[in-house]
């Protein structure tokens, strides 16, 4: 009786099943249902249709948040990939002190987002930070006032984030590079293909699954960005660096505007699904289908 044989296994997996259903599925349903109400301080079942969403899309602050998440997502993802791949390639050149360099490039990844944010806040401090250093060295024209500049503050966030995340991509890519067959390198060198060309046009396409995984993981993390910005700019100047996650948290915990927060969080959730769905479809469905044939 397979049912009885596995009864212990079912009991063992019960916590996972309960958590998946109540927390992962249940919370989304809860949030969606209450996003259709006009709940303020406490959740109340007062149905108002999609009013909260309509109001959300009219908020200037939400527009800024969405714009920021696109800028941040784009710059951060590209920055991490380019720098991470470049570092992986360099470290793959049998250089001296390989493990030292690897340690240096990855250590920021071990640190908290809050720490990263606070350190860069100090480094980019408009009065005492790097700008001041450059002035003291005689580069009076040098400007690095990003943290107090409405248009550039989000790029300061990007720098801090790339500093923290590039090592992660480097590790993934390096694992991929080390997995490339020696024979491919041999035949490439017999053909006389320049090294940089080999990397760009032969090796990089071979690493595609790894690149795709890295992009998906980074992109799914982008949507969540919260602590880093809270520590670095607190969403400022003004609300120039606010993000959807901050918008949600603010409406939950300081503005007592639950309906708005639920609606915004559902939009966040939908965007994550949009990022993941094509990847998951490819990874789990198409791949299995081809594997079966």
């Amino acid at each position: 009786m397979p049912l009885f044989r596995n009864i212990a296994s079912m009991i063992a997996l019960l916590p996972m099943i309960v958590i998946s259903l109540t927390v992962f599925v249940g919370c989304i349903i809860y949030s969606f249902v209450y996003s259709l109400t006009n709940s303020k301080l406490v959740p109340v079942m007062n149905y108002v249709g999609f009013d909260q969403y309509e109001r959300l899309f009219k908020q200037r602050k939400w527009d800024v948040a969405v714009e920021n998440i696109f800028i941040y997502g784009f710059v951060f993802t590209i920055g991490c990939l380019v720098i991470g791949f470049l570092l992986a390639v360099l470290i793959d050149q049998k250089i001296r002190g390989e493990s030292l360099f690897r340690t240096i490039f990855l250590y920021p990844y071990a640190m908290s987002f809050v720490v990263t944010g606070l350190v860069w806040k100090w480094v980019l401090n408009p009065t005492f930070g790097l700008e001041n250093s450059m002035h003291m060295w005689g580069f009076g024209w040098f400007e690095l006032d990003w943290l107090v500049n409405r248009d550039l503050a989000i790029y300061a966030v990007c720098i801090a984030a790339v500093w923290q995340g590039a090592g992660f991509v480097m590790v993934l890519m390096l694992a991929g590079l080390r997995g490339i067959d020696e024979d491919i390198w041999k035949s490439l060198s017999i053909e006389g293909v320049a090294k940089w060309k080999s990397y760009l046009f032969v090796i990089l396409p071979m690493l595609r699954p790894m690149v795709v995984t890295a992009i998906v993981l980074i992109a799914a993390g982008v949507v969540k960005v919260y602590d880093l910005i809270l520590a670095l700019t607190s969403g400022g100047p003004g609300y120039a660096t606010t993000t959807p996650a901050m918008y949600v948290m603010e409406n939950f915990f300081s503005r007592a505007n639950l309906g708005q927060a639920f609606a915004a969080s559902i939009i966040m959730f939908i965007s994550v699904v949009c990022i993941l769905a094509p990847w998951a479809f490819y990874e789990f469905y198409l791949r299995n289908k081809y594997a079966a044939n």
Partner: protein
Amino acid sequence: MSAIPSGPRPKHLTIGRIGMYCFILTCALFFLMPLYVMIITSLKDMDEIRAANILNLPKELSFYSWPKAWSQACTGFVCEGLKPGFFNSIKITVPSVIVSVGLSAINGYALAFWRFKGAYFFFGLCMFGAFIPYQVMVYPLLKIEDALGIYSTLPGIILVHTIFGMPILTLIFRNFYTSLPIDLFKAARIDGGNFIKIFLYVIIPMSAPITIVAVILQVTGIWNDFLLGLVFAGRDNQPMTVQLNNIVQVDYGVAEYNVDMSATILTSLVPLFVYFISGRWFVRGIAAGAIKG
């Protein structure tokens, strides 16, 4: 036979390689700069910080900011430094790591060896949970914990960390266990082992490497967490990251950058220590967490 080597000396250092080293050293300096600034700032006094270049070494070492950050710096009206946060973080991290790793090991074991119909459906659901932004789940989860009477308590935050650590940990345990030879399991079955016995006497003794990876992943992850600690831990159990942010972001009084930087270093000591002693295990953790099953 002449022992004198003939032909051109093998070139180890070409222009290209020198350029490469220059580039990688520049990158290394960029990655190290914030750490360097953190450390030297914490060793300066405020007069020097105001007068001198942020990148200059301190003229005379001042250590007063360290004890101040540890036990006197103020968060709001309380001036106890980071010390309570440090112990809170330990109180949160240790049980959370034990519970989440233990539970996930059992999950992985059940999924790998005792599959029952529907088990993988729930596993998929659980994995899906890894990508849902916290903001979607925070409020409903808070309501659930409130109903259970554990909101704002130590068990409450431990439960939250267990829930959010579960998808990725279950995945890496399952992947590890499916890579074990199945014959081992079959032999144990023939010898009359049941679910619990096989886990205790066959599986656990072989789980050391993956457990180390999981523990590293969880210790750094939970220690560095900010958002969950902020919402779920309650006033009396605020983790170090939350207190750090409160100390640095005080919006009254004179900002003491040296104390801020000491506090930042103190907060990142645990994850950095784990990172530096665990080296390749940390890297394995990243790879295991990133590669999907």
